[in-house]
């Protein structure tokens, strides 16, 4: 059941201030029709503010909200036709599940039988077809959020807004529902904005991930790109784990780490030639080789953490006693027992520099 209204969304130059605190600064984001974009960032970074502005629940902001070419900034929340799922459980406690899902149609004065059919159809879609007569408090948290999703979709919204819908749920339900949201979103084809502070969630669900920090959208790109080619040090450090390795800057686009030349990616910090800095390298971009304890890259294995298919090894560098983390397949990690001398090898070709 694909909806007819696949819309594009443009948020242009949004700015929102609460008292002295700037919640959002020059925020620009475009969503292609049918796209699922996740806004990712720590709490207080402005991601929820951006979503609430799009929903019309936060007003008094600067900037434009353009849906299918029309600026809707002056339209009140209840006329925007947005489907929203909240972080907190938000089902209406006095209505049955079916009535909850049909609520948006009821306030639109849709014929009783029509809205019952539509609501039932959506309950089937979220896998709760037989729960229509229950009340909210008779459902588990995961089921309540499914109903909330069905309720949001019942009005065939222009945009689906998901405000940390999974954060109140326990880990197993969260993963399951996350995959299901993705499936339903793909099936229905509604343009979707998903707000979360959980990296894995954002990476797993989104077509593009927007990384936010202090009210600013740092980078918005497909998950692989965010992870492999972060645009700057802030994004690199926020997404996934990062090692900081001492680097010598050779030129504007070259540096040397452990005697190995690496390409320096354009960064927001200007790199002065001849100085040193810290190169950012992911745990899986490093590997280990049993060594003799000499040389610039030698280290001692401190501990191993078994994570199932992967094992994370932490080593202490002989040169400066700093700690690095290396991820490798668990089978390979067996040879590196605690206390053994190793050499660290770098497999990255281009890296970012934290000057």
């Amino acid at each position, binding site marked *: 059941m694909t909806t007819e209204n696949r819309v594009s969304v443009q948020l242009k130059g949004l700015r929102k201030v609460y008292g002295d605190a700037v919640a959002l600064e020059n925020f620009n984001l475009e969503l292609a029709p049918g796209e699922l974009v996740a806004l990712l960032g720590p709490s207080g970074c402005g991601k929820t503010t951006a979503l609430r502005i799009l929903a019309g*629940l936060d007003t008094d902001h600067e900037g434009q909200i353009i849906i299918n070419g029309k600026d809707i900034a002056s339209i009140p929340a209840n006329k925007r*036709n947005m489907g929203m799922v909240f972080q907190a459980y938000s089902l*209406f406690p006095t*209505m049955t599940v*079916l009535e909850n899902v049909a609520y948006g149609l009821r*306030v639109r004065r849709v014929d009783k039988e029509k809205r019952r059919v539509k609501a039932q159809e959506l309950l089937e879609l979220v896998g709760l077809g037989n729960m229509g007569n229950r009340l909210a408090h008779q459902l588990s948290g995961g089921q309540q959020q499914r109903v909330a999703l069905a309720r949001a979709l019942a*009005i065939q919204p222009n945009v689906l807004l998901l405000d940390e819908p999974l954060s109140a749920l326990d880990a197993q339900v969260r993963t399951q529902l996350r995959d299901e949201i993705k499936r339903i979103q793909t099936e229905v084809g509604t343009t979707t904005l998903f707000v979360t502070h959980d990296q894995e969630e954002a990476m797993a669900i989104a077509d593009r991930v927007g990384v936010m920090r202090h009210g600013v959208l740092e980078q918005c790109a497909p998950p692989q790109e965010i992870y492999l080619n972060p645009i700057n040090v802030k994004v690199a450090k926020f997404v996934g784990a990062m090692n900081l390795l001492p680097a010598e800057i050779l030129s504007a686009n070259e540096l040397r780490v452990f005697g190995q030349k690496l390409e320096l990616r354009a960064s927001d910090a200007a790199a002065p030639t001849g100085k040193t800095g810290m190169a950012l390298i992911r745990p899986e971009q490093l590997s280990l080789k049993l060594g003799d304890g000499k040389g610039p890259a030698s280290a001692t294995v401190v501990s191993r953490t078994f994570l199932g298919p992967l094992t994370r090894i932490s080593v202490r560098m002989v040169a400066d006693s700093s700690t690095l983390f290396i991820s490798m397949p668990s089978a390979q990690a067996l040879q590196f027992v605690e206390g053994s001398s190793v050499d660290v090898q770098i497999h990255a070709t281009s890296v970012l520099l934290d000057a």
Partner: protein
Amino acid sequence: MKKKLNVVNYIVLLGATAFFVFPLIAATEFSLRAKNATTHNFDNYIWVFKQDGFKTTLGTSFRLAILTAVAVLILMVPTIVYLHLGGARWKRFIEFVCLVPLVVPVISFALGVQTAFPTFLQSTVYELSFLYVVISLPYTYRALDVGLSSIPLLTLVEASRASGASMRQTLMFVVVPTIRSAVNGAIFLAVALSLGEFTLAVLLHWDTFPTWIANISQGHILGAISLSVLALVGSWLLVLIVAIAPKSFGSNKTQEVAA
């Protein structure tokens, strides 16, 4: 130890019950006495129903009560919802305003009415409703405030707004049903107050049920006591209705507007 405490509890409970029940039994017995004081019958009750003005004043009082309750809800529910949703800086002011009726003597209200109310209002008994709304504010405010504090109001309102509901629809379909017991409490308080209010009605020269009771009981003590017993039973019935209503009416209502 625990058992002993239980015994004490029961003694206290029995004592308190006796304290309340004996006067009621005595009053009921007294009101049922026949003129010769040796047999019992319902003459005094029949006498009450035969008096002029019983039906008219009772009708007036009920109409006033309903009007008052409706006005209280229309005035107070949106106001207190607004206070909870972001008008917090007005909260202390509104709270203060709602407490004022407790400390202002009713007679000043009556005087105020005669100088400030437009004449078309002064010429009808329903002017009392406006005053009853005011004097019920301290109680109805509390009832509704507590009700709204106990629900995740902001989330529910935002969910309703996002679903496309206007503020009026949100109040009617979501907020009021969710705080139904608080709304019922407020209705009950407003109704009870309107049905029992005496001073304002007398001062403004209107005939309501309480003023009628005062008038007729002056000449017939047994009749007056029969009336008190009737009034008591009546108010208990009212409490009972309000207590049962949310369950039965509530479920019917949701069925009726079902999707």
